[in-house]
């Protein structure tokens, strides 16, 4: 928890090498951190700053812009219930209340067992299938209260692991960029101007 593991540092260095300016790797590295811990800790941000030659607050400035980078620990599953206009009209608020009752926590909180974090979100661009929710940013559309109950039970029991990986996991297949396509700043990298961080 916290700083990146040596395996992830390796991965981070590879990602950094893909860009002409190391700073461009900031968001990908935040994803690496969130994938590792499920959230982005201050230690992770400090570590990323070290790797990129930035100050920690520059990392925080970027990380805090994105609501999906969690800067507090979250559950294994983040359940995001839409309460924006279409969902609202079709029972989004009720769906959220149902989830709150079912999980025993208010929106914005995490269950004591650390499995679920419930949140209400603005439009998640699935209005045609309202009401809808996301679990770790995977869509569940046109969902009924019964379906929610089943979904939550399945998740808790580990029956949907294939479909919904733990919070922070981006994809199962990691993109691999062939080394010859890295913009590279090894020996033949772009010149770095004085005062400019790599």
């Amino acid at each position: 928890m916290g700083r990146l593991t040596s395996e992830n540092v390796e991965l981070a260095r590879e990602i950094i090498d893909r860009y002409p300016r190391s700073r461009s790797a900031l968001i990908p590295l935040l994803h690496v951190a969130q994938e590792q811990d499920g959230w982005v800790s201050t230690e992770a941000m400090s570590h990323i700053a070290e790797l990129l030659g930035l100050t920690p607050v520059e990392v925080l400035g970027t990380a805090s812009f994105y609501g999906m980078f969690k800067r507090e620990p979250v559950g294994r599953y983040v359940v995001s219930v839409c309460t924006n206009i279409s969902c609202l009209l079709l029972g989004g608020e009720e769906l959220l209340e149902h989830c709150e009752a079912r999980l025993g926590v208010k929106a914005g909180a995490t269950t004591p067992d650390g499995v679920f974090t419930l949140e209400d979100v603005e439009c998640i661009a699935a209005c045609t299938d309202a009401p809808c929710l996301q679990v770790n940013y995977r869509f569940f559309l046109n969902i009924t209260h019964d379906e929610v109950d089943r979904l939550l039970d399945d998740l808790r029991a580990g029956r949907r692991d294939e479909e919904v990986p733990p919070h922070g996991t981006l994809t199962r297949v990691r993109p691999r960029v062939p080394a010859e396509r890295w913009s590279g700043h090894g020996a033949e990298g772009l010149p770095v101007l004085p005062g400019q961080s790599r």
Partner: protein
Amino acid sequence: MAEADQKEKEEEKEKTTVTVTLDGQDIEAEPGELVIAAAERHGTYIPRFCYHPRMREVGMCRMCIVEIDSGRGPALQPACMAPVADGMKVDTESARTKKAQDGVLEFLLINHPLDCPVCDKGGECPLQDQTLAFGPGESRFVEEKRHFEKPIPISDLVYLDRERCVLCDRCTRFADEVAGDPLISFIDRGNHTQVNTFPDDPFASYFSGNTVQICPVGALLARPYRFRARPWDLDQVESTCTACSVGCRIAVQSSSNRLVRKLGVDVDPVNWGWLCDKGRFDFEAVGSDDRLGAPLVRAPGAEDLAEASWSQALAAAAEGITRARIRRGPESIAVLGGARGTNEDAYAWSKLARTLLGTDSVDAQMGDGLPAEAVVGLPRATIDAACAADTILLLGPDVKEELPVLYLRLREAVVERGATLVELSPVETGMTRYAEASLRYRPGEVTELVRALVDESAAVGDSERPGGLAPASAVREAAALLRRGSLVCLLGRPSLAEPAQPVVDAAGVLLDALPETTFLPVLRRGNVAGALDMGLAPGLLPGRIGLDQGRPWLAREWEALPGGRGLDAQGIITAAAEGRVGCLVLVGADPLADFPDRELARRALAGAGFVLAVDCFLTDSSRRADVVLPAAAFGEKSGTTTNIEGRVSRLHQKVTAPGTARADWMIAAELAFHLGGDLGFDSVDTIWDEIERLAPSHQGLTRARLASPEGFDGIVAGTVHDAETHGGPPSMAQTDSPGIQGALAHTKVDTLASSAMGTADKPDPSSGLAMQPPDPSGGGGGGTGTVAGRPAVLRWTPGPSAGGPPPLDRYSLRLVTSRRLYDDGTFVHHSPSLAPLAPGARLGVNPADLAPLGVGTGARVQVTSGRGRVVLEAVADPGVPQGSVALAWNQPGPGAADLIDVTLAVTEVRLETLSVPAPTSGRGSDA
């Protein structure tokens, strides 16, 4: 057709200005100039919050929106983002412009708390002023404003009130672009955007105070000023900061006769409006309760110093001096110090020492600078010249620590202008990250490194490491950079643990090989350059002339001059320790803190027959004096000061000195009377006139010129000969003064300028002394510089080199010690906000040297040299090369001064771990 095109192109090229119609009037603007700047130059103030002429424009606040017609019809555009174009029409007063500005202000005020009555900025707030001038009468916003915890400390010196912030990006841009310390940033961007630091990572920048000055609202507040005064109670004068020798121009502000604030004033050749935090906040020491307000005398045989009247103290001082002169001869008298006062102070003491005391043993430096002949005699560069050079060679201490605003200028030259920086230093410094080549050398071996750098014929073998550390390939690369074009060398003392000679030898080698090189001395003490110009160094007379060479010239006005060259600080202190000094005068000097060898300094103070100290505070050294005379400090006296370039600029009195403390020059003059003589002046003005008349380098530098708009930037001495030719650069009223912004700025700036001019001609109000009329021969106003027989200014020629590098002892580590911005110096020590910032004496050791001891960072190690032994906390520091150790100079408690023996070429130390935890303070075994 093609010809016509060609012709048109050429015409375009030749055209150096573009014509813009501003509110119906045609104005000339420079191509690329921003509308907001061009308008301001022509007297039209476009309101703004985010725009700052010294930073990149961002168009954040939208306040400067005006109607601009570039040929496609008028459109609203931010004037700070629009460069001028020929034929452009700008309307700053149209109904649409007014409505837009009105709307922007209403938006900005939506979340602004309007707690102006309790806000420090109230009364000088651009948001307040511009709302009044350009804004809506009332807000339509009825909802809840956003709330944040009221001021949070973002550093030891700065508080942040996020509710007041209008997100102009000035502080964050400053931190990133100007200071290079991006430790504050916008976070939680969106509806809750706020400026903040990373958790537990404060805005610990040496320049944090500038963000307070440029904040257009009351969001950033300086701790030393918060709730101390209201702007309408403030009274201010123009002055020059003397915390170091960069000579930043400032406004000094007081309330109820106490200094409360220093603001940077934007002058092109020096500080661009910026200040370092030490310069900005060290005024606290001026108002300290510890200031000396009355003379102190140690009665014969008495243990303690006791308060005395001035006449008693001066009589005692005169008696001590006279006794030494009669019994042991005038050459047994020595004067140390004088680099902390004004030029006039230095001149008065220089004259007193040479004439009435009859000694040439005077030194303004404390054995911690460079030989005076080199400082005054090397071809001198200005800061502008250094920043404009193709290559800048750093051969001195860490500029960021010693002369922070010079660091800002150099950093700008490298980052924005692409200047090449080559650094030669024994350890990594704050400049290293900006250097194209940064070569390490072993302490004591810098001359060898420079020789290898400039000597094209001497092929350096690939296996060789000139200077002990830098590989031959790196040296070759750096050597090529030195010959790329113009070269300016910043020359100073990289480490106080070794003598100045290797650095001076290196300068000689450099000048021999590259004779076009110019030098900018990197010396720290406030007016050290001025003190040397005034002759406060052995063998030097006022005006950068040698003693013998200047003797016939000065003998016309100075009664008598000492026969031969005297001793420098090291010579004086050594002589005093050996009992050869009958009278030691300390003019603001504290050898126990500042001289590199504390043991020798201690013996010197004990061994000197009679010690007279002139000081603002009782220091370790002045506490041991027989007579202590209280001196006026910065802000309490007028005069002039000289920065490292030789630039003379004015200081003005703002508050009265505590008790009966007086300016140094007055003390010198009074002492002269008690010694039966007369220095021949009765005010700073008469002293300056005498300097202008007698000092060859200061010829033509009249009071009138210094008080003119030209003098506002300061005038570089030694370069001016014709007082008539100056054209008149912009007056202060035209200068953008970041501290004093807003619609009302101009009136305020005018007040500042005029009050400054006003004080120039008034007699010094603190001069309550009964002075005799000036010597008739010394009278007269501004000189003309036409007096015949003026000797030529000294030219420095390298002497014989000190010889090869000191032999290497493979079992020892070589000590490197240089200053940090915050140390245990008198002014920092007595500034409550700054004193806690001193980092303390910690020993930086290369991890590879620390590993064999089996300890890491935080371990306490015993450091032993031939001179002494101290216990320090070790820090693993890869910036320190193997074989060296680094220790900050003059930190509270025992430190480098206890280890250094000034007679040795290098300071070698051995480290031992301590099996038992050592006491955290107190000297080692030899205490």
